[in-house]
């Protein structure tokens, strides 16, 4: 029953991505990226990843779309047709895709409860984290306690990116204004 929902949703995602890639108007492509984020958030929700879905909706559909629209307001909004040969990129892409499809033949089935990913580390977190950390949400306890240094690294990455954006846009712009 839920297989039908999965297949319909994944097909919608594929169609949206295809349309976003083919769209010449960059505004239209950004709008379709927003729809794509909503769809992927919906798919994460179906797969029980509540926190991921929440983040994807706020970050993907919200912040990314606004950032891209802001960029478009400062640059051009129409894509020019490229006159390059498309054969080499298509060849590379199809070879990569073919290799990956060959790789999926060995992968465990979708939602297989005996897949290796479910047997190794996760049972420990599911059984013990309630007693060890005391937070009902397992994702929170792993993110903030068991893997706290990973999150610290993540914060460092975001800080670096923020500094980069400020250096690229904020400070240079202000100095130009001061000179004029």
């Amino acid at each position: 029953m839920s297989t039908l929902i999965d297949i319909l949703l994944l097909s919608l995602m594929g169609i949206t991505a295809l349309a976003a890639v083919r769209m010449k108007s960059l505004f239209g492509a950004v709008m379709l990226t927003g729809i794509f984020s909503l769809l992927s958030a919906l798919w994460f929700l179906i797969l029980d990843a509540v926190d991921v879905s929440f983040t994807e909706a706020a970050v993907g559909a919200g912040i990314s779309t606004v950032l891209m629209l802001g960029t478009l307001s400062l640059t051009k909004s129409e894509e020019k047709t490229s006159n390059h040969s498309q054969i080499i990129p298509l060849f590379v892409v199809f070879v990569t895709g073919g290799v990956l499809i060959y790789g999926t033949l060995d992968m465990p089935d979708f939602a297989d409860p005996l897949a290796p990913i479910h047997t190794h580390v996760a049972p420990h977190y599911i059984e013990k984290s309630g007693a060890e950390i005391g937070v009902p949400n397992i994702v929170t306890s792993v993110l903030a306690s068991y893997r706290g240094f990973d999150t610290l690294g993540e914060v460092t990455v975001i800080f670096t990116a923020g500094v980069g954006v400020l250096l690229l846009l904020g400070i240079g712009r202000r100095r130009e204004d001061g000179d004029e």
Partner: protein
Amino acid sequence: MNWVTHYNYWIVILLMMLGFYTIIARGNLVKKIIGLNIFQTSVFVLFISMGKIPGGVAPILRDDPTTIYSNPLPHVLILTAIVVGVATTALGLALVVRINEAYGTIEEDEIHEQDRFF
């Protein structure tokens, strides 16, 4: 193996191919970043779909001891990846804005054309 149990992998590969093609074949820089986003999302979908257990519920502890929870580890990894991904997008878009200020265009061909004279 039949096509229903591997359909998610095929959509992941389709998304990956679309994003990869956009990154290497399209000249427009904003389009390249859109391709990068699609590529990223394909990886997210791959990870999250591996964590699903049939009949499982979201990994938030309940009083009932017989509850089956989905695997929380991919959720943690992807939560980090999404936030890092938006930082990357913001940095890339800032670079696009600066390139547009310096060259007056966001098409790769025209940027190469102008670079040839220096």
